[in-house]
């Protein structure tokens, strides 16, 4: 409990410091805006115009974006030598609450408009969030699907250990929506704190199945087997991305968002199993 108190107190001071730093920074950055906007448009094709980008850009991203954003981060560092992209992947809701609590970040990519709204409502975002991909749910089962799970309804069979994401987390909210839409009542063995934690329980064979994203099943390779279910069409998550108000490195933040939305970025994301926005 002391951890809670300290966590909220200290970032506030940091945020205060950051705010004063920003006041001075914004004066310089505004003059560069026009030139960087030009370079952004060509960033995906060639990075020649934006070589002056430097420093670290900190991206808070939903756990389900881990693999594809890591790839994009490496590409970004290659396109812009001298930059470094650091990621914090986690449940969108916990990322959102750490941002509103003053955690220093430049970009936030969440797995649902609802968790993004926490950040925009708190006035911590710059501009309006843009949807960059969508994601569909899938059932992850043990390799070879020994329990013969073929539909969402099969998950309600007794004796089956199913894990869901917590209802506060986008994947949990989406799963609940799909279950509600098909009037199914599912009692999981655990509500996990993010989608990767849910998937891990299946990878470790502690649970028989989990409702996760298609992209997570894809990323897990042959450690799990994916089962598509039609009800997932009722619960497709939109992923919004936004630049944060307290961003320390606004230029690089803009460039990273541009990369995510560029044709090259979209290709990486769709290869990971995401749907186009």
């Amino acid at each position, binding site marked *: *409990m*002391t951890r*809670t*108190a*300290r966590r*909220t*107190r200290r970032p506030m001071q940091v945020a205060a410091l950051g705010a004063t730093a920003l006041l001075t920074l914004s004066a310089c950055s505004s003059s560069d805006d026009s030139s960087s906007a030009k370079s952004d448009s060509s960033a995906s094709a060639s990075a020649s115009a934006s070589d002056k980008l430097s420093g670290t850009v900190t991206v808070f991203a939903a756990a389900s974006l881990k693999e594809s954003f890591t790839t994009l981060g490496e590409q970004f560092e290659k396109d812009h030598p001298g930059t470094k992209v650091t990621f914090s992947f986690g*449940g969108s*809701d*916990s990322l*959102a*609450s750490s941002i509103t609590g003053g955690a220093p970040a430049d970009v936030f990519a969440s797995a649902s408009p609802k968790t993004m709204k926490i950040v925009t409502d708190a006035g911590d975002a710059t501009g309006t969030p843009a949807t960059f991909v969508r994601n569909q749910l899938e059932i992850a089962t043990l390799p070879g699907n020994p329990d013969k799970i073929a539909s969402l309804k099969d998950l309600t069979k007794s004796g089956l*250990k199913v*894990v869901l994401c*917590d209802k*506060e*987390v986008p994947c949990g909210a989406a799963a609940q929506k799909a279950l509600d839409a098909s009037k199914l009542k599912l009692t*999981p*063995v*655990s*509500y*996990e*704190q993010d989608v990767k934690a849910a998937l891990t*329980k299946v990878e*470790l*064979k*502690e*649970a028989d199945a989990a409702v996760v994203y298609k992209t997570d099943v894809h990323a897990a390779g042959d450690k799990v087997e994916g089962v598509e279910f039609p009800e997932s069409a009722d619960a497709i998550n939109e992923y919004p991305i936004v630049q944060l108000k307290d961003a320390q490195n606004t230029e690089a933040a803009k460039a990273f968002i541009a990369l995510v939305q560029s044709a090259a970025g979209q290709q990486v994301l769709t290869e990971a199993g995401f749907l186009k926005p």
Partner: protein
Amino acid sequence: MTLPSDKSGAATDTLRGGPRRRRVRTGGIGGGGRGAPLPLLVPALIGVAFLVVPLIALLVRAPWRSLPELLTSAEVWQALQLSLVCATAATAVSLVIGVPLAWLLARVEFPGRGLVRALVTLPLVLPPVVGGVALLMALGRNGIVGRSLDSWFGITLPFTTAGVVVAEAFVAMPFLVISVEGTLRAADPRFEEAAATLGASRFTAFRRVTLPLIAPGIAAGAVLAWARALGEFGATITFAGNFPGRTQTMPLAVYLALQSDPEAAIALSLVLLAVSVAVLAGLRDRWMTAG
């Protein structure tokens, strides 16, 4: 009982209200002579502030007006009840296994004793989440021991209340072992020897002589272990998962509430704080002040 000089003894002392004989007399704070010297006093006061201010902050920021409403929800009581039951069960497990283990480490010479002591106290410094992963590898449905538990007895621990107790005991038992071992080392072995010369077996001597002798140390260790178990988060969420009423203890409820409803998280934290203070104070009166 003489004061043991190792770490566990220090923990025992703290619970007893500090080592009395070593207490510094501060005639006038900051005054010369026998008063506390400034280079010690200033960091000491900073230390007090560092530990106390976060707790005060919790009280200051608490949503007092909506508190009754937040705390009367069934979920909170469920989580609190589960926390108390699991922490107590984990302490009981620790007592049953931990006291004999402490006795073995303190009283029996055997090769590799130092190594065994280091290994059993490792969970003290191990990050709890790592402990949870290790427990999954050992006692999970697919773990090296858990696999047999599942196929022979049909017992699976993850995602069950028993799993919570296992996770908490794993993290909390070393506190008890260290505390009891320190007390045992400080206890005079001549009482046991005297019992032996009067014809008592080693077990009888332990039961009738040693156990009453080290009771305060056991109590202090049990309180430490209980408090640690009550606050356990990482190993629990990793090993036992999170399901209201079954494995969602207070710390898990606080963490998940913090994501969506910080006010509820503060309210839950207050409950946990109050319970901890109440138990420590209650036990202190009963066991700690004697001796």
